[in-house]
Structures are given as C-alpha cells and as structure tokens.
C-alpha cells in the first residue's frame, strides 16, 4: 500500500504549486485468458443468468421473485414476506456481512474480483468494447487518432451497444419490483408510470456510467467495502502477490539465456501484469489498496512463465507470511484455518441453519390480540363478565383460510358473538372484534392470564397461541 506518511527528506527543498486533484488517466486493460479468467467468466454468466432470468420465472401463477413495494409483500419462490418479517432482511444482511468477513479473511477481495456487480458489468462492457474497438493497443491507437468517420462509427456503435445493455439492466431491475411482463407491455406501448420510467433510466444510466466510464474509479474512490476489507486482512490472508525473492532482479532476456549467468530473477519485465490490470497498478510494487484481487495478472504472468519455460506462480495467490517465511503451499493452506476464519465459518453456519429452520417452520398465520383500553370489563346479564379485544389476524398464505377462534385459561371462559369459522381471503388482514365472557364467580377479582388460540378449521396443525389477560372487576 502507499504509505501515507514518509520521513521528511533532510536535503534542501523547493517550494512549488501542486494540484490536489488530477485528471483521471484512462486505463486500457488487456484481454487475458487462463484459469482465473475462466472462473470470472463463470461467475459473470452465473450471476447475470440469475439476475436477467429470475424475474421471468413464474411460481403458482405469479412472478417467482417479486418485491411488491406498493402492496408491501415480497415474494421469493414459495415464500411470501410481509413487512413484519423484516427480521429476515436483517438476517440476510448479517449473513452477507459474515460471508464477506469469512471470504476476505481467507482469500482477500474475492467478492471484488469475481462477483461484485461493478466487476461483473465492467467485464461485460469491456467485452463489448473489445469486440467493437479491439484489444488494448487498438483502443489506445483509436483514442489517440484524430476524429474520422470510422472513429465516429465505431464509437457510436460501442455506446449504442452499452446503452442497450444498460437499459435492459434497468428494465430487469425494475422488473423485480413490478411484474416484468406487464412492465414490458407498458414500456412498448409507452405507458410507463413516472417512477418506473425514472428507475429504469436511473439504474440503466448508473450501469452505463459505472461500467462504461467510471470503472476502477468506483472501487478506488467510492466503494466503502474496498477500504474496510483491508482491515480484515492479516498476514495469513491469501492475497495476490508478486514473489520478489524469485523475480528480482527483473530484466528482459532471450528465451535461451541462462538466468544464473545474467544474474537476473524470473521476472522478464514484460509488463503484461500491468497491462492486464483493470485498476492500472503494478502488482510488483506489493499489496496496494487499489488491487481488487481479480487475478488477471496471475493469468497473464503464468502464460509468460509457460512461454519462458519457467515454473508458474511468479505472481500467485499466497499469504504475506508464506512469502516472507517461504512456506510451502500445504503450510500456507493450513494456516488459513486460524481462529478468526473458524469463528466466522461457525457463526455463518449457525445463523444460516437457524434461519433455514425458522423459514421451514414459518406459520402462514400471524395473530395479535389487543385488549380494548376504553373499558376494562363489564357485567353482562348479572352473572357474567365480559372483556373486549381486537383480534388482528393476518393470512400470509396465498390461499384463503377458514379459522376457528378458541380461548383457554379460565373455567367457563368462552368466545361470544363470532360466526365461526372466520373466513380470511388469501394474503390479507382482518380485524375481528372479540368478546370473551366468563362466569362472574369463577375466580378472584383482578387480572388473569389467558390464551387465544386461532386454528385452521381444516388443518389443526396450523395454529397460533397468543397470550392476553382477562380482567374481573372488583
């Protein structure tokens, strides 16, 4: 990393005016092939197949994944989440954070290098750019060339393609929040709602700007995760590093030259690692905060090592401890099993299991019993005491239900004035005024714990027990 603080030089200095802001230097990453590039391709395809494809799947006659903000219902395959289930969102965030901790502690910025949308869309946009403008050198030459008809055509073509992808991305994104087939029909007939149109354009333009223009600037200057992931590193975290002891002193040589005679290391100083880097750094300067851990330099260098007939891995996944102490791969791997990574993994598994269990046993009913606050109790017919409650029943399920309301906890306690069973349509809420009566002489005056039981009339296994109190007047 760049040390922010250096000792002041003792020699004489000249005072000059320096700019504190600089114009961004455009980076032209060179195409790279290899094992890690294939991994990235697999993740780009996997994540995007999921993202672009998911809204088109249907489940039970509705969109399989739909976050219906207006109706405040969130459909994920067979599950329906209501705002009351926000705890699952919190759990999802906790799981995501823990995963980030775990993977970062094990192997650095894996997320950044392979799965982050910024990386994935930059990769897609780079692929388009390469198909239209050519690879690194062709692009540098094109940008340096004066404006010509051909240059205009190529540039227009590229931006049109980018725009098309970006708009489709925006459309897909909004399709997670409003039924995507409907949205398509309305988009074609130019009848989009104001907010739908805004978000398609906003998300589309953000994709176009971030993946087409901003690229590594997002990681370097905007992304908070990029910065705080470095504090999760320790000396046993696997990072992408250049093996200085093996590579230095660097220098070019012919393939047949004897390294020992020339007194050079394995690095042939071909600069491939710099050319392929999407953030434009030189990995040979050591671990830097700009490095997103994409391993493009590993692939690039391995190819050169193969051509030179040298062993692979001059630039490789390794830990700082392994580099300085010269561990073999086994020792390095064993040292990744340290307390922090084990603790992260255990927490992750524990929370994930509890969440899965809770989802599997999630009740389709939510019930709340609210005592009336206006009147505590009243006498009915001289020998009975009545308490009034408001029963809020939510049928979270996608099927209508018929429910029975029962009550337990006091001798002679019974439900009055409800036509049993109560019908509740699919996915809706009902407030039912509930009158409970008990014989006046049943128990002592004061507050008594009772339980209201709401049971599915056709399936006794679906039941909710809600606690409340019954008050006898003094």
């Amino acid at each position, binding site marked *: 990393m*760049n*040390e*922010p*603080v*250096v*000792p*002041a*030089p003792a*020699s*004489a*200095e*000249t*005072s*000059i*005016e*320096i*700019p*504190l*802001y*600089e*114009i*961004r230097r455009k980076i032209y990453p060179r195409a790279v092939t290899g094992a890690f590039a294939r991994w990235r391709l697999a993740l780009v395809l996997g994540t995007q197949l999921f993202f672009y494809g998911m809204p088109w799947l249907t489940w039970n006659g509705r969109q399989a994944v739909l976050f219906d903000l207006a109706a405040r219902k969130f459909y994920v395959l067979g599950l329906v989440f209501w705002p009351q289930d926000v705890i699952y969102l919190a759990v999802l965030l906790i799981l995501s954070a823990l995963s980030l901790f775990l993977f970062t502690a094990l192997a650095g910025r894996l997320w950044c290098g392979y799965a982050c949308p910024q990386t994935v869309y930059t990769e897609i946009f780079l692929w388009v750019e390469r198909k239209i403008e050519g690879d690194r050198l062709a692009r540098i030459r094109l940008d340096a060339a004066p404006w010509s008809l051909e240059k205009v055509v190529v540039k227009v073509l590229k931006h049109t393609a980018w725009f098309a992808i970006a708009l489709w991305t925006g459309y897909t994104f909004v399709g997670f929040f409003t039924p995507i087939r409907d949205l398509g029909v309305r988009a074609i007939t130019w009848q989009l709602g104001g907010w739908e149109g805004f978000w398609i354009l906003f998300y589309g333009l953000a994709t176009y700007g971030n993946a087409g223009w901003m690229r590594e*600037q997002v990681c370097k*200057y905007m992304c908070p995760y990029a910065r705080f992931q470095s504090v999760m590193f320790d000396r046993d975290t696997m990072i992408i590093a250049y093996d200085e002891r093996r590579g230095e002193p660097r220098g070019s040589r012919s393939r047949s030259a004897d390294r020992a005679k020339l007194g050079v290391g394995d690095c042939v100083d071909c600069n491939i690692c710099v050319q392929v880097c999407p953030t434009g750094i030189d990995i040979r300067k050591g671990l830097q905060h700009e490095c997103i851990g994409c391993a493009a330099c590993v692939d690039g260098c391995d190819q050169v090592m193969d051509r030179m007939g040298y062993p692979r891995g001059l630039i490789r996944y390794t830990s700082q401890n392994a580099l300085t102490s010269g561990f073999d791969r086994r020792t390095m791997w064993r040292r990744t099993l340290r307390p922090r990574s084990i603790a992260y993994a255990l927490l992750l598994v524990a929370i994930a299991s509890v969440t899965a269990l809770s989802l599997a046993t999630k009740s389709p009913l939510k019930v709340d019993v609210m005592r*009336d*606050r*206006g*009147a505590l109790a*009243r006498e009915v017919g001289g020998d009975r005491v*009545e308490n*009034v*409650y*408001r029963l809020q029943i939510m049928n979270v399920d996608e099927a209508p239900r018929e429910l029975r309301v029962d009550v337990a906890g006091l001798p002679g306690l019974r439900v009055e*004035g409800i036509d049993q069973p109560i019908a509740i349509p699919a996915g809706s809420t009902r*407030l039912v*005024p*509930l*009158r409970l009566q008990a014989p006046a002489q049943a128990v002592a005056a004061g507050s008594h714990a009772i339980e209201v039981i709401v049971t599915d009339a056709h399936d006794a296994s679906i039941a909710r027990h809600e606690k409340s109190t019954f008050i006898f007047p003094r």
Partner: protein
Amino acid sequence: MSDFVSEFWSSYVAALTLASIAGCAILLVVMSRARARQAADQAAPDKATTGHVWDGDLTEYNNPLPKWWLNLFWITLFFGIAYLLLFPGFGSMRGMLGWTSSGAYAKERQDVEDRTRPLFEQYLKTDVRTLAANADARAMGERLFLNYCAGCHGSAATGGKGFPNLTDKSWLYGGDPDTIEKSILDGRMGVMPAMGPVIGEENVANVVAYVRSLSRLAHDPFKAQVGKPVFMQNCAACHGADGKGNHAVGAPDLTDEDWLYGSSQPTITESVMRGRHADAASGALAMPAWRATLGEAKAHVLAAYVWGLSNGAAAR
C-alpha cells in the same frame, strides 16, 4: 415563521445560508491547489509532499483525488442553489414552485377522495337498511368503527360505563337509521342536571328508591312512596311520568335493565345528586360531532354498520 419570532431571524438564516454557500465555493477554489515542497527524493519525482509536517519529521505524500470528485462538489453546490430558489428554505422565502408540505398533503388527500368519490356517492344514495345488507359496506363500516368509534364504544360496540352499548335495542335518542346518522353527524350532548341542591339530600334518597322500584330492583317501599311525587314534580319532565324516558332529549328509560352508569344504589344516588354531563371528572363525555372529520358519506356507511349491529338478522 414570523408568528413568534421577529423578521430578523429570517434574514439572518438567509444570510448565513448564502455565506455558507459562498464559503464552500471559496474553499473549493483554494483547496484545489496547494503550495508544497517538492520532495528532494529523486527516486520518486512524482511524489511531492503536501508541505504539512507533524512531530518534527513526518510529512505526507500528495495523493490527488480525481477531478470528477471536485466537480461533484460544484454540482452539489449548484444543486443547492437551485433547490433553495425552487423550494422554501431560503429564510422565509416561499420558493418559485410554491410547494408546501401541507399543500402536498392536501393534494394526496384530494387524489384519494377523487378515486373513492364514485363509490361513496353510490353508498350515499343507498338506504341505510339496504346498505347494512351489503357485505363490502359492512366491512368498510367495521373498519371505520374500529378507527373512530371503538375508543369509547369498544371494539365490539358493547360500550362501557358512560358509553352506550350499540348492540342492544335500548337507545337514548332512538335507534332508527336517520336518528343514528344524525347522532354520528352532529353529536349528542345529553345533560342530567344535578338535582341534589334542588330537592335536598333526603328527597334524593326517596327518588332513588322510587327509580329503583321502576325497574324492579331492591328498594325501600316507604321511601319509594315518598319519592314518587318528588319524581313527578322534578324528573318526569324529561324521563316521562312513566319513567320510560324521552328520545327527544336523550333521557334514558329508567324502567329497563340497561343502565349507562350502573344500577347500584350509590351510583344512582350520585347520578341524581351531581347529575351527568359532559365532564371529564364525572367519567362522561359528550358524543362528538363527526360531520367535519368524516363527511356525510362515511357517516352514512357507519350508520348502516351501527344499525346493523342491533338489527343483525334484518341486516343480513
């Protein structure tokens, strides 16, 4: 703003806002360049230091931010100025768009009312008895009741001490649909005057015995006998000679089993002694008028729901 502070503060806030914006602009210009000492280290000629020195020998490299970052600041600044011109925010200036939060609220409310008007107009034209048989209207009435009425009358509309039970056939002002609707729209303010000072404590006890005799509760027959002429003279004007009450003034029927405040001797004594009227201390409140809050259409739907409560079979 000027309701409670002087106009000075408006211009003070405006001046402060302007000064802050100008200060930000100056800061941006000044901070984009700096006087710095060129590092003498020739190995890194691009690494100029910023000229700051800490602890005698610590300096820092200049790691410039990208230009677009600076431009973002400028965009924010101009956005701020445009916002202050368009929306209220600059002192007490109203902004060129004339936007207000109460205006936005009124517009949203208007939108909802415009959407629901056809339905309510149709309901308003429908007779209460017919409306009470309409399941949709009944569901709406139930929601309205739980929102606006259940606080006093209870979720099950069975009332409580001082708040009438709406599910039975005993009515203070009458239980026909029109009267119920009028009670909801214009409210009711029943007053039972304090009779203690008028007839004296002894006569109060006699009247209470007579009143209890009317509804066949345990009473002293002698006292009731003495209390009867007192009742005829002082109470019959409202409660009627037979004690059956009067819907016109909301005087309760004293011969039935329903008692708004309770039928025990001390309770009735208190009712006669000190009266019952809209007074928080006596535990009673008037029925408020809902015309302004709910409007006629919602009151109509509510009337249908309330009428349906005590005419259940007829309603369904």
